[in-house]
């Protein structure tokens, strides 16, 4: 059982990582997912995160099979 992680835009370029997966662990928050996958890199200011394509806070707890996404402020339109 894993969780999928995706990075977008400047974050994807800086981390040189578009997507990856982590083994699922119970009670893991989005913030803990960030720390594991970036090797404890500090949280960028204005970091946005989504679980299963909906905005969530960093304290959201993830479930097995979730898709967790990290990205910078949006600039469309």
């Amino acid at each position, binding site marked *: 059982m894993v969780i999928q992680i995706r990075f977008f835009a400047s974050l994807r370029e800086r981390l040189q990582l578009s997507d990856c997966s982590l083994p699922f662990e119970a009670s893991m928050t989005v913030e803990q997912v960030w720390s594991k996958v970036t090797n404890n890199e500090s949280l960028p200011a204005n970091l946005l995160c989504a679980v299963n394509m909906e905005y969530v806070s960093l304290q959201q707890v993830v479930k097995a099979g979730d898709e967790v996404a990290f*990205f910078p*402020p949006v*600039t469309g339109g």
Partner: protein
Amino acid sequence: MKWPFFHPSRGAEMHIEIRSEAFEPYHEVQVYQEKIQATGQYGATAVFVGTMRDFNEGDDVKGMALEHYPGMTENYLKMVCEEASGRWSIIDSLIIHRVGKLWPNDPIVLVAVWSAHRKDAFEVSRYLMEELKSKAPFWKKEFLADGDRWVQHNTPGY
């Protein structure tokens, strides 16, 4: 990349589409309007078109790459349209947004709203644009003469 029509509970129609090729916004509005069943019911149409400028923050911009989060973008815009059709009285709405490489004067985004009375069309077109600019997962990278840069944030529209 076509997105199907949604039929939210309030009866307003909507169509949301992410395009990877250039589009002509006024042609799209005309073609879409010809398919609206509610002929004779809409008295007001408010259309907004965002176009790529050749300058930003004091620099000449040669081109742009627009990235998005497929799936989440469409979900988010659908949710905003449904919310708007609950708060205002609208008949139909259309959103088309470009992704991929763009050049100055290329249309980036089209928002069109049809309603019986003008207040709703005006307010919803602006509301959809503000929600889109502040929360829909799109990101712009600008091509300048001396390299590329990611746009850091959108400016507020009110």
